[in-house]
C-alpha cells in the first residue's frame, strides 16, 4: 500500500494537470449570451436608432470605436479599463447605465465582463450565416421514421416528453389531404388508402395527392398572400386590375414543381432572363401586385416610389424573413443592416418602367388568333431581311410597347395640364415640356394620342418654345377602339444629345381656350421601321402598325429601363422620399453573402444572389413557411423575422437540416421538401393533448402531438363545396364573383359592381374569388385573411362569433348545407339514421359515435316537428330545388348545417 501511494499521488497529479489544461474555461458566446443583454438593456439608446454619447452596440466597429468621450467604451481583453463595465457598476445614478432603468443583474455584468476579458469577440446571428449541413441526432427508436424525427425526439427527451402514437388512418387521410391539396380526398383516393394495408399505403397517398392538379391550387392560395395578389389596384378608387394570369402561372409552377430557385428567379427577374417568353414575363407580375393610386391629384412619383419600397420590403419580409422596412428610416435597431444599405438594395428595383400610370404600363401584350401568327411572320421577316437583333427588338416592343416615355413626365404646362395626373393634355395654343429626352440616333417619333378635333398642329421645339423647331405634326380626330387612342409615327431630323422638348398645340377649329383638345399617352423617339427596299417591306410595316393597335390580353409586368431612361437612386433621409441624400448604386447588405462579381448589378444579379446556396435566408424562410403551413406555426414563429428580434427558433438545427436538404438533396423541389415533412412520424402523430401536456407545452412547440389547426378561409370554403358535391373543378382564368351580400363594394369614383358569376363559376375554389383590396370578400376576412394591401407574411388565427355567424347563416354556406343534405339522401334514400351516419363518414372517413349521432337525431326530430307544422318554413329551408318540399328534407338540411359547423370539421385533426 505504501508503495502504491506515490503512484496514486502521481496519477492524481497528472490528472490534475491534464484537467487544468483541458478544463473547459467557460467561453462566453456572443450570440446567445451577450447579444440578448444588449438587445434588451442597451440597444434602444445605443443602437441603430439612437447612438447616445456616440456609442452604438450594433456593429463591432462601432462598439469598439471611440465614443464622444474620446476613448472607446470597450477595450477587448481589459474589462477593468472598459468604460462599459465601469458604467454598469457606477454608484452615481447619473453615471450608472442603463440610464434611469434598473441596473443589470450580477450575472449579466459577469457575462459582459468575462466576454470583454476573453477579447470581446463579435459573432453573427445564426440566421445571417450560411446554412450548414446539420448532423442528425443519433437518437432513434420505434417511433422515428425519417431524419426529421430524431431532431424532434431529442428535444422532447430534454423536456421529458414522449411523442404520440400515429393518428388513425381516417384522421391522417383527411389531414394530409387538406394540407397538400386544400381539399378532402376524393372518394377514389380515400377508398384506395383506407383499404391498402401495405407499408407503402401512406406514401402512395402522398404521391397521389401531390400529382393532383388540386395541389397547385392549394399552394397558390398561400403564395397569393405572399405576393399580395389582388384583382384591384388599391387606394381610393381601387379600380380593377387584370393580373390573374400571374395566379395561373403560380398554379402551373406549383403543379410542375418548378424548383424554388427558378420559381424565385422568374418572379424577381424573368424579364431580364435570356429570351423571356410570355411565362417569364408573367412571373414578374409578382412585383406588379403593388398598389397604384388612381386618386385625382396624386403625385405619380410618390406612388411609384411607394411601390418600389413595397417591392424591397416584400422581398425581405416574405422571401428572406427580415424586417428590412426598419432600415428605411435608420439603421436597423437590432440587426446588422445600415441605413444606406436599404437604398443600395432599393437601387436594384428602382429602374423598372412602371410609373403609376392609369394603364399600368408596362404590360405584356398577348395576341389572339390570327394576330399571334402575324407577329411570328413579322419576326421571321425581320430576322431574314434585317437581322436577329432588330427582330428581337421589334418583337419585344410589340409584346410590351417598351421602351416608351409616358406622357405624365411632361411638366411646365401653359394652357394645358396633366389630366387626372396621368396624361399630358393641351388646350388651344397650350404648351408643355417633356424634359431630358435622348435624341441620339433617332429619326422617328412614334406616339399615342387622342383628340376630338381635326386640324390640330403639334409643334415640337428643342430646348425652349423659341428654340429650333424639331417637327410639326398634324393631329386629326381619333376614333376607334381602346378609348380612341391612336398610335402614329412621323419622321424627325436627327439631333444628337439630350434635350428638353417643348410642345405647342394650335388649332383654329377649337373655339374655346377651356377645352382640352389633345391628350398624349406616350412617346417613343426611335428609328424608322427597318428593311426599307426589301421585298415585303410595305406589308411588314403595315402589319407592325396593325399589331400595335391589335386587341390583346394584357398583364402588368416588370420591364427594365434602358440607358436613356435610367433613374438614379438616392438615400432618403429619415425615410422621407422628398429629402434625397447621397446617390447610391445597387449593392446587397454587407452582412450577407457577397454577389457573384460576374453577375450583373441588376434585378437578375439580385435574383441569382438570392438563390445562391450561400444566401443564408432564402431557403430557411421557405422551409420555415412550409413547416408553418403543416404544423400551424413555424420552427421560428415569426416567419417574417428570423433576425435577433424574431422569436427564437424552437428547432434551429432542424430548420437548417431541412434548408440544407431543400437546396442540395432536393434541388429546391418543394414537393420533395413537403413530402419529407409529411412522411415524418412527427407529422403523423395523433393530435390529442391532455391537461398535463397542455400545461407543459400549450402551443405544441415541442411536437409531442400532431398538429390540430383551424382550416384557412380558403380550405373551409373548398371543403364545404367538396362535401356538398358542388365544387367546380374548373381551373384558371378570370377571377369569379360568387354570392356576396349587397353593399360590400362602395368605393368612391368607381362604378364597378359585384356581378354574381353564373353556373359553375359560383362554386369555384376560393382562390379564384375576385379580390378587392378595399373591400375583400367578407368570409375571407372573417376567417383571418389579410386585405393584401401589402404582403401577408402569415395569418394569425382567431376564433370569433362572426365566424360562427358566417358558417351558420351566410347563404353560401347554407346552400352548401342544403346540397349536403341532398347528398345524404342520395347515400341512403330512407333511413335518417343511415343518412346521418353515412353523411358523417362522407365528411370524416370514420364512423360516427353514438353520442354525436344522438345529438344530431335529436336536432332532426325537433326540426321535423316544427317543419311538419309549417309548410312555408319547409319551403324556405329547402329552397327551390325540391318540387315537393318534405319536412324530412328540411330537417335534414338543419342537421347538415350543424354538421358543417362542427369543431372537428373546421379543424384538421
Amino acid at each position, binding site marked *: 500500500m505504501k508503495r502504491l501511494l506515490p503512484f496514486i499521488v502521481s496519477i492524481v497529479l497528472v490528472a490534475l494537470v491534464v484537467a487544468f489544461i483541458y478544463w473547459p474555461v467557460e467561453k462566453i458566446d456572443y450570440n446567445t449570451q451577450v447579444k440578448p443583454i444588449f438587445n*434588451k438593456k442597451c440597444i434602444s*439608446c445605443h443602437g441603430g436608432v439612437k447612438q447616445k454619447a456616440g456609442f452604438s452596440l450594433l456593429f463591432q466597429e462601432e462598439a469598439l470605436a471611440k465614443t464622444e468621450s474620446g476613448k472607446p467604451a470597450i477595450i477587448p481583453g481589459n474589462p477593468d479599463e472598459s468604460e462599459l463595465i465601469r458604467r454598469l457598476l457606477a454608484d452615481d445614478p447619473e453615471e450608472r447605465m442603463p440610464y434611469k432603468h434598473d441596473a443589470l443583474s450580477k450575472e449579466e455584468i459577469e457575462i459582459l465582463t468575462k466576454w470583454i476579458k476573453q477579447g470581446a469577440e463579435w459573432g453573427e446571428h445564426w440566421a445571417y450565416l450560411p446554412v450548414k449541413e446539420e448532423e442528425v441526432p443519433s437518437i432513434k427508436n420505434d417511433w422515428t421514421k425519417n431524419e426529421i424525427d430524431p431532431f424532434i425526439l431529442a428535444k422532447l427527451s430534454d423536456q421529458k416528453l414522449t411523442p404520440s402514437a400515429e393518428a388513425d388512418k381516417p384522421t391522417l387521410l383527411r389531414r394530409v389531404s387538406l394540407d397538400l391539396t386544400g381539399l378532402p380526398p376524393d372518394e377514389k383516393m380515400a377508398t384506395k388508402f383506407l383499404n391498402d394495408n401495405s407499408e407503402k399505403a401512406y406514401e402512395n397517398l402522398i404521391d397521389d395527392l401531390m400529382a393532383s392538379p388540386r395541389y397547385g391550387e392549394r399552394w397558390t392560395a398561400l403564395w397569393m398572400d405572399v405576393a399580395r395578389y389582388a384583382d384591384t389596384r388599391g*387606394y*381610393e378608387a381601387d379600380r380593377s386590375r387584370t393580373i390573374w394570369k400571374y395566379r395561373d402561372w403560380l398554379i402551373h409552377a406549383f403543379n410542375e414543381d418548378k424548383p424554388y430557385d427558378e420559381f424565385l428567379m422568374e418572379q424577381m427577374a424573368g424579364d431580364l432572363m435570356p429570351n423571356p417568353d410570355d411565362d417569364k414575363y408573367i412571373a414578374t407580375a409578382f412585383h406588379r401586385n403593388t398598389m397604384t*393610386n388612381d*386618386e*385625382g*391629384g*396624386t403625385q405619380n412619383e410618390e406612388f411609384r416610389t411607394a411601390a418600389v419600397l413595397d417591392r424591397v420590403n416584400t422581398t425581405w*419580409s416574405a422571401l428572406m424573413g427580415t*424586417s428590412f422596412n*426598419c432600415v428605411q428610416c435608420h439603421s436597423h435597431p*437590432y440587426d446588422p443592416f445600415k441605413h444606406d444599405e436599404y437604398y443600395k438594395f432599393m437601387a436594384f428595383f428602382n429602374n423598372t418602367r412602371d410609373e403609376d400610370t392609369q394603364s399600368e404600363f408596362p404590360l405584356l401584350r398577348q395576341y389572339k388568333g390570327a394576330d399571334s401568327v402575324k407577329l411570328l411572320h413579322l419576326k421571321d421577316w425581320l430576322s431574314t431581311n434585317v437581322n436577329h437583333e432588330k427582330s428581337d427588338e421589334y418583337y419585344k416592343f410589340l409584346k410590351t410597347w417598351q421602351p416608351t416615355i409616358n406622357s405624365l413626365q411632361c411638366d411646365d404646362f401653359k394652357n394645358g*395640364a396633366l389630366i387626372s395626373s396621368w396624361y399630358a*393634355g393641351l388646350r388651344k395654343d397650350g404648351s408643355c415640356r417633356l424634359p431630358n429626352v435622348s435624341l441620339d440616333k433617332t429619326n422617328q417619333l412614334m406616339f399615342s394620342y387622342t383628340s376630338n378635333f381635326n386640324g390640330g398642329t403639334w409643334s415640337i421645339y428643342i430646348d425652349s418654345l423659341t428654340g429650333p423647331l424639331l417637327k410639326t405634326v398634324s393631329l386629326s380626330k381619333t376614333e376607334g377602339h381602346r378609348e380612341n387612342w391612336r398610335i402614329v409615327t412621323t419622321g424627325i431630323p436627327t439631333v444628337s444629345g439630350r434635350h428638353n422638348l417643348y410642345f405647342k398645340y394650335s388649332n383654329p377649329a377649337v373655339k374655346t381656350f*377651356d377645352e382640352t383638345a389633345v391628350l398624349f399617352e406616350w412617346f417613343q423617339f426611335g428609328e424608322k421601321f427597318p428593311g426599307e427596299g426589301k421585298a415585303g417591306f410595305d406589308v411588314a410595316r403595315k402589319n407592325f402598325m396593325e399589331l400595335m393597335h391589335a386587341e390583346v390580353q394584357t398583364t402588368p409586368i416588370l420591364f427594365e429601363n434602358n440607358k436613356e431612361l435610367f433613374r438614379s437612386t438616392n438615400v432618403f433621409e429619415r425615410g422621407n422620399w422628398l429629402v434625397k441624400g447621397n446617390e447610391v448604386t445597387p449593392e446587397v447588405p454587407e452582412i450577407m453573402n457577397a454577389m457573384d462579381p460576374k453577375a450583373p448589378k441588376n434585378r437578375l444579379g439580385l435574383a441569382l444572389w438570392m438563390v445562391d446556396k450561400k444566401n443564408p435566408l432564402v431557403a430557411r424562410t421557405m422551409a420555415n413557411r412550409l413547416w408553418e403551413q403543416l404544423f400551424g406555426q413555424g420552427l421560428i414563429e*415569426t416567419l417574417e*423575422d428570423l433576425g435577433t*428580434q*424574431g422569436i427564437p427558433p424552437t428547432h434551429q438545427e432542424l430548420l437548417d437540416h431541412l434548408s440544407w436538404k431543400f437546396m442540395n438533396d432536393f434541388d429546391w423541389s418543394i414537393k420533395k421538401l413537403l413530402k419529407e415533412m409529411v412522411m415524418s412520424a412527427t407529422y403523423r402523430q395523433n*393530435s*390529442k*393533448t*391532455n391537461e398535463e401536456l*397542455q400545461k407543459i407545452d400549450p*402551443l405544441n412547440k415541442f411536437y409531442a402531438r400532431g398538429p390540430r389547426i383551424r382550416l384557412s378561409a380558403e380550405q373551409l370554403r373548398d371543403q364545404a363545396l367538396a362535401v356538398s358535391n358542388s365544387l367546380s373543378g374548373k381551373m384558371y382564368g378570370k377571377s369569379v364573383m360568387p354570392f356576396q*351580400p349587397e*353593399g360590400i363594394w*362602395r368605393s*368612391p369614383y368607381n362604378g364597378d359592381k359585384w356581378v354574381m358569376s353564373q353556373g359553375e363559376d359560383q362554386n369555384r375554389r376560393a382562390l379564384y374569388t375576385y379580390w378587392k383590396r*378595399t*373591400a375583400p370578400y*367578407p368570409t375571407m376576412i*372573417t376567417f383571418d385573411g389579410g*386585405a393584401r*394591401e*401589402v404582403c401577408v*407574411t402569415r395569418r*394569425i388565427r382567431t*376564433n370569433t*362569433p362572426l365566424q*360562427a355567424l358566417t358558417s*351558420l*347563416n*351566410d347563404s353560401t354556406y347554407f346552400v352548401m348545407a342544403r346540397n349536403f343534405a341532398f347528398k345524404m339522401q342520395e347515400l341512403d334514400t330512407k333511413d335518417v339514421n343511415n343518412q346521418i351516419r353515412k353523411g358523417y363518414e362522407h365528411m370524416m372517413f370514420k364512423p360516427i*359515435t353514438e*353520442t354525436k349521432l344522438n*345529438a344530431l337525431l*335529436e336536432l332532426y326530430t*325537433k*326540426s321535423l316537428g*316544427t317543419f311538419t307544422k309549417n309548410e312555408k*318554413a319547409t319551403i324556405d329551408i329547402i329552397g327551390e330545388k325540391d318540387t315537393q318540399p318534405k319536412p324530412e328534407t328540411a330537417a335534414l338540411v*338543419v342537421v347538415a*348545417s350543424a354538421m358543417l*359547423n*362542427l*369543431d*372537428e370539421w*373546421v379543424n384538421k385533426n
Partner: protein
Amino acid sequence: MTQKELHNQRLLKEAEYKTLEHQTRRHFLKESAMGLGALALGSLFYSCDSKSPSLASFFDATNPLAPRPPMFPGKAKSVIYIHMAGAPSQLELFSYKPELAKLDGLDCPPSLLEGKKFAFIRGVPKMLGPQAKFSQHGKSGLWLSENLPHLSTVVDDMAILNAVTTDQFNHAPAQLLMHTGTPRLGRPSMGSWVTYGLGSENKNLPGFVVLTSGGNNPDAGKSVWGSGFLPSVYQGVQCRSEGDPVLFIKDPPGMDRDIRKASIDAINKINKEEYEEYKDPETLSRIAQYEMAYKMQISVPEVMNINDEPAYIHEMYGTKPGEANFANNVLLARKLVEKGVRFVQLFDWGWDTHGDSAGNAVDIGLINKCRKVDRPITALILDLKQRGLLDETLVIWGSEFGRTPMLENREGKKMPFKGRDHHAEAYSMWMAGGGIKGGTSYGETDEIGYSTVSGKVDAFDIQATILNQLGFDHEKFTFESQGRPFRLTDVSGKIIHQIIS
C-alpha cells in the same frame, strides 16, 4: 326655441321612459363581462427597450376580447369618432378669417405658391373669401359660422383645434394617416388599437363598430378600420343601418329561433365530446363563440334598432328609422356606447367641395351637408350629457385635411362653382366630453387661414391625446410585429394638454 331648451323641456318625458327602459346602462353593465375578476391581467405593455413576449403568450386566442384595464385610469371609457370624409372647409365652419374676405377675387400672392404642391390648383389661383357669416357663441365666445346653428349652442362643451396640420393632401393617404398613423396601408386603425388594449366591455356586442353614410365608404376603404398586423378580431365591425346590421346576423329563411337554439345545442354537445377526446382549448372557445353568436343575433339587431326611441329623440337628432343616413348613425353611436361598445367610428362621405358641381360648392353643397350633420352632432352632445355619459365618452369630429383659402382652378381653368382645393397645412377639428376642456379654442392660423401660427397639432398628437384620455401612454402602448414594437403614433405624438380639463 333652441335645441337646448327643446331638450330641457323633454327631460321630464325622458324620466318616464326611463322606467320603461329594460336595458339601462347599469343593467347592461351587469350583463357585461366587466368586473375585476374577469380581467386578463397579463400585461400587454412593455417598453421599446425590453424584449417582447411572443404574440402567442399574451394574445389569448380563446378570449381575445376579454376586458383589460388600461395602463392608468383614463377619463374616457369609450370613443365616438366622427369623420367627415372628403374634408369640410374650415373657412366656412370654424376658422374665422375676416381678412380673407378683403382678398376675395384677387390673385393669390406667389409667396403662398412657391414650392407648394396642390392636388388640383394649377398656376395662379384667385383668393376666395369666407362664404359664411361668423359670430361668437356661448360663455366662451368661440367663433362659429352660421352653417352650424345648432352646434353653436354647445360650444361651451367643445374644444376646437384650429391649427391641425398634415403632410398628406390626397384623401386616401390622409385618412390612413389620421386613423392608422401612416399614409401607407398595413397598420392597425385607432379603434383596433383601443379594442386590443381594452377588450370589449360588452360580451354580446363587438368592441369596435363602424357606421358609414353618404353613399360611399371612405376613400381609403376598409383599411381605416382594419386591424393591420393586429389579430383580425380587433378590426372594426361594420354595422349597417339598412339591411342586416351585421353581416350574416340573420338566420336563414325558414330557420326559427328554437331550431337555431337546438342547432347550437347540438353543435356544442358534439364539440364537448370532441373536447373530451382532444382536450384542445380552442374547442372550448369555439363552444363559447357559438353561444355568443346566438346572443348577438338578438342583441345586435336590438341595439341597431332605433324604431323604439321616443319621438322627441328622433326630433332632436333628426333621425328617420329605416334609412341609411348620418343622423341615424349618430343616434346608433350613442346607443352603442351606452351599451359598452368601446370605439364607434362614423364616416360620412361627400365633403370634397372642389366646386366642380353644385353639390360640391362651398356656398351650396357644403351648406346642405351641414344641415344634415349640425343637428345630430349637437343632439349627441346634449343627449350624452343628460345621460351622464359625456364625461366618459370622448367625441371627436374632424377630417383628413382642410381646404385652401384659394378658389380652386382645376387644370388652371375656372370652375363652374365656388370650391376650394385640398389643404394640408391648416384645418380645424373639435373634441368634446371624455375629460376635454369645454369652451376651448386651441391653435391659430394666419390671417387667411393658410398656415399655422401657434398651437399646431397633427394626427399623431390627436391620437396621443385620445389614447391618453383612455388611459394609455401612447409611447408605451405597443405591439410586436416584424421584430420590433410598433405604436399607433409611430415615433411622434404629443398630448394636447391645453384642451384637457
